């Protein structure tokens, strides 16, 4: 009888669902593969080079930061996600060394300096993109037409930077923007690819529906109310990638269901306000960064009423 053995004693529960952080992160990576493929299809191997640099430098930076902080480096996949998201927000012609600088900033400053995964206030990829936008203004706003237009290498305005198209309902333009056959950042042009990736995450219940639905819904309603073309606004710029992949970042978005609704609505309003009245053509990036800062406050006031709460019990006495 083999009953002499050392038994493990640990607190309950003694079962685990088995969904680990790395599994969640790699599912996000999986969902991002289609937009990545679209980026390479529309913008060529240069897109692949940008993404490779971004991911590699992100990983390397995380490794070095953990070494410096004397913490264990865990290959949890979060740096891969950050690297991919940063890469997908890059203009196709940005010099690779700038991408590397952005990746270092994302991981070393935005993430690790605040304590690493779970402690950062801002979405690392978005904050790094904002940093790059002010550091390298010209390369970060130089756009080229996708190869599908047969105008490879030519500079071209993005849909949002040309005022003229804003108020016209143009099915041909919608179709091009839906498929991704338009100029813009690598990963944000193909709404279709982003939608499929986003639905994958929704279907696997990796992200909650509230933030993307309220974000995109409010943009549609608000722009319609302003007399503009809501379909154009939904398909243009970074709204799709922002709503599905950036605003839903666990670490920097609210925990509570009500908080997620408030977060989504606020993002929609801010994005339209910036697009409409701000000094920049696109508002997704700054909307999300602004709302990231409000996340702790939103969480504080939107918790569900606990079970069995009748009245706050007065202190004994």
């Amino acid at each position: 009888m083999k009953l002499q053995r050392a038994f493990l004693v640990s607190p309950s529960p003694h079962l685990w669902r088995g969904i680990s952080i790395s599994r969640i992160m790699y599912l996000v990576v999986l969902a991002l593969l289609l937009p990545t493929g679209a980026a390479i299809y529309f913008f060529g191997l240069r897109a692949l080079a940008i993404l490779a640099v971004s991911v590699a430098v992100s990983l390397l930076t995380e490794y070095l930061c953990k070494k410096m902080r004397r913490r264990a480096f865990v290959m949890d996949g979060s740096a891969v996600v950050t690297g991919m998201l940063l890469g997908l927000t890059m203009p196709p012609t940005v010099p690779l060394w700038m991408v590397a600088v952005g990746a270092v900033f994302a991981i070393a400053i935005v993430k690790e300096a605040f304590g690493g995964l779970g402690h950062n206030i801002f979405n690392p990829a978005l904050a790094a993109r904002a940093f790059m936008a002010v550091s390298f203004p010209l390369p970060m706003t130089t756009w080229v037409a996708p190869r599908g237009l047969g105008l490879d290498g030519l500079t071209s305005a993005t849909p949002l930077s040309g005022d003229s198209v804003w108020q016209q309902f143009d099915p041909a333009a919608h179709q091009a923007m839906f498929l991704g056959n338009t100029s813009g950042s690598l990963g944000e042009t193909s709404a279709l690819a982003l939608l499929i990736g986003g639905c994958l995450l929704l279907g696997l219940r990796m992200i909650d529906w509230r933030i993307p639905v309220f974000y995109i819904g409010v943009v549609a309603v608000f722009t319609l109310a302003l007399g503009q073309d809501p379909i154009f606004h939904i398909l243009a710029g970074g709204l799709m990638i922002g709503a599905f992949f950036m605003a839903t970042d666990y670490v920097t978005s609210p925990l509570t269901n009500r908080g997620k609704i408030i977060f989504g609505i606020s993002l929609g309003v801010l994005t339209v306000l910036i697009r409409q009245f701000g000094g920049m053509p696109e508002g997704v990036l700054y909307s999300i960064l602004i709302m990231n800062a409000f996340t702790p406050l939103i969480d504080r006031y939107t918790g569900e009423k606990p079970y069995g709460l009748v009245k706050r019990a007065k202190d004994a006495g």
Partner: protein
Amino acid sequence: MNKSGVILKKKSSPHGVKVPERKLTAGRPIERAPLPEKAVISLHQNLGAPGEALVRRGDRVLTGQRIGDSDKFVSAPVHATLSGEVTGTTMVINPPTAQPVEALVIGSDGTDEWVQLEPADRPEDLSAEEILDRIRQAGIVGLGGAAFPSHIKLAPPKKATIDTIILNGCECEPYATSDHRVMLEYGDRVLSGLNIIRRLLSPQSVYIAIEDNKEDAIAHMEDLIIGMGLEETIKIVPLESKYPMGAERVLTKLLLNREVPIGGLPLDVGAVIHNVGTTKAIHEAVVEGRPLIERVVTVTGAVKDPKNLMVRFGTPLRTLIEFCGGIVGSANKVILGGPMMGFAQFDLDFPTVKGTNSVIVKDDSALAEQQCIRCGRCIEVCPMRLMPTALARYAQAGHYDLCKEAYVDNCFECGVCTYACPANIPIVQHIKVAKRELARRAPRK
């Protein structure tokens, strides 16, 4: 869809989790476990006060003889579970409190000679006081796991109005099948015990809650209810199989849409909830005069031949595991109780107690704890609508006052948050520490 009208509409909860059920022994009829050579009877097998020994070393005791008791209000006696000689005392660790408690060791004489039982000639003529006294004398405690003395639960304070009895046959913990088998094999005693407590409390509604993974138990209980002509009185509520459906507060919410106030009891919302094994024991105590000395224990997991066993209290885990063919493979964990709320044991000489509904042997490994990524899964699954991640964070930082403000007392430690956590944070453990620390600091009344 059912003609008798006994079975009501199935209920479900938006909270909780689908856990792997692993009910390996659902189809295994109850077998009698062998009598051990010696029984170790913990004097503290209820949620209240520990008992004191009524016998001394060298005394001969008979099966069913009262050997430990307390004069404290919340307490229940313990009885000898075999006949033989008291060979001494020892200390065992009381699983829920992790405190060492005194235990009596009885060496078996192999005859299992019983004390003279006093069956009730006419059980229906017993007064409420007599019934409660018989329940107390029999040492009956809640057999769902909490081990709260039953006679106290059945004598609610005068100001409480009880309008509902819920008989709990959910058995939502994975692996466990003892309640399931009790309903199938002792359903008549379960209902007889239920009828006894109906007499005590005269409720307006009586429900039996059973998870829908026990279709045969639902059907069997329905047949018995019809056979007794009680189809207008007792209703069965099937529940979606989900953990922790069988928790008292979840049941009051699901069945009655009433929330037990924080820090309160189900009787505060008019409900008394008893486990099916408890009402079986109540029948045996009141009608047959039998003390509670055994129960059904599911011995399962990585043992050669998983079984449902009728086990005398005080039987060492080793005896049960050996009777099931021993441990197979590299299993390195022995759990008393279910895998979600049970206690890991390191010592196979540990005796079964009244609260032991299952013994689970399994493989496990310590997982590396990571940082919270704020995914919100713990909040989504929490049946008490708490923010477990925040509670764990406060507790880790020693901010127990913040835990209190965030209603840590509402947590009944079901463990779904920890089960769902991708960062392997032992959330429940942090919460338990906070609750214990707050209780220690609270001014004594």
